[in-house]
């Protein structure tokens, strides 16, 4: 790894100042993506600004029908949180299935969505639930946040502080794991909410996570695994790589959608 200056600010203001004062700063959270990337010299920031020392960043709290999860809450913390479980057990279950136990002890929800890996789990959960992403500057709807493979609506140096999720009527997630990496070869998150049915697909799209209009319409008409059968599934815009062809991924989307609806009950 190249030399890097480490900062651990105790407030958002100090974090903003540390980012502004560096040649090329990167925000550091759990480090489970950034550090491997730096080891491989795919990222070489001059400075890393660790946000885990900022007060409140790991808090998880329920108000009414909404749970707010601090950006630095680890996957293990979300998986084990009664608060998250009371609003959306499917999101807690999604967190429990990310990577392996050691990764879950360090990796954070903010880091996962800021990275927006096309095969990551949280982007599907948050897009499927119509979550709100809170930063030090504004609130961003999940529909506007995930803008493409490894890209988001975040400005340079903008810090995610929390994510909030409102209670769905029902929600479920199913992923077909890449047997080597444990990332999603295809993952589908389904949610029935007051504002309609939402279906988000990860692991498959060339532009990262996306909503599937055909599945949403079918499940809005009939919330059952069988409703998925009739949906037209095109392989256009899906990834083809050494792990799976676009056609295979298209097939997996339907299978995972059925399993997700079955899990949601």
């Amino acid at each position, binding site marked *: 790894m190249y030399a890097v200056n480490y900062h651990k600010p105790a407030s958002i203001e100090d974090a903003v100042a540390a980012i502004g004062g560096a040649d090329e700063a990167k925000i550091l959270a759990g480090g489970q993506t950034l550090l491997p990337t*730096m080891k491989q010299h795919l990222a070489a920031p001059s400075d890393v600004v660790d946000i885990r020392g900022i007060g409140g960043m790991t808090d998880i709290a329920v108000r009414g029908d909404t749970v707010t999860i601090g950006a630095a809450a680890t996957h293990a913390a979300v998986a084990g949180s009664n608060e998250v479980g009371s609003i959306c057990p499917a999101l807690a279950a999604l967190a429990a299935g990310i990577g392996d136990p050691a990764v879950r002890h360090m990796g954070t929800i903010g880091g996962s969505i800021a990275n927006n890996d096309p095969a990551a789990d949280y982007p599907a959960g948050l897009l499927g639930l119509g979550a709100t992403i809170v930063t030090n500057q504004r609130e961003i709807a999940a529909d506007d946040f995930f803008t493409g493979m490894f890209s988001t609506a975040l400005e340079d140096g903008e810090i995610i502080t929390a994510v909030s999720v409102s209670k769905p009527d029902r929600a479920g997630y199913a992923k077909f794991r890449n047997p080597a990496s444990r990332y999603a070869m295809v993952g589908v998150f389904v949610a029935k909410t007051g504002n309609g049915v939402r279906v988000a697909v990860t692991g498959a799209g060339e532009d990262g996570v996306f909503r599937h209009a055909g599945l949403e319409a079918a499940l809005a008409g009939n919330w059952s695994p069988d409703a998925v059968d009739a949906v037209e599934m095109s392989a256009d815009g899906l990834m083809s790589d050494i792990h799976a062809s676009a056609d295979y991924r298209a097939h997996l989307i339907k299978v995972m959608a059925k399993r997700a609806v079955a899990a949601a009950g």
Partner: protein
Amino acid sequence: MTQVTMTVNGKAASGDVPGETLLSDFLREHLRLTGTHVGCDTSQCGACVVLVDGKAVKSCTALAASLDGAEVTTVEGLANGELHPMQVAFNDNHGLQCGFCTPGMIISGIDMVNRYKAEGRELTEEAIRHELEGNICRCTGYHNIVRSIKDAAASM
């Protein structure tokens, strides 16, 4: 440089470390605790797993500078006059061959037993296999590792 002080295997350990120093390097190079192994560059093999504040963490994927005040336990810190029950079980069940993955397997085993006990859940053979997803072994085929952890869980 960042000044860090940790408790490693019950003893205070401090040093002035450059920002890029990984916990695995701090343990192996600064403290000469070479029981923690480094088997990959991609955070996938788990040979480097140690306990940080009681939780299994990949020491190759954590900056030493970020762990000021942390309590770290490596494989060297487990035996306390006698071997830890997890070490005994790996010995009794032939849970290793070359031994490269073993420090990480033993720490991950302890972590999973502790978590399942705290949550009152049963650590079944299937659960052990899932819990070991982040620990790769090139030699054993895992059967005896799983047996060792199951055995230790009964005596921990």
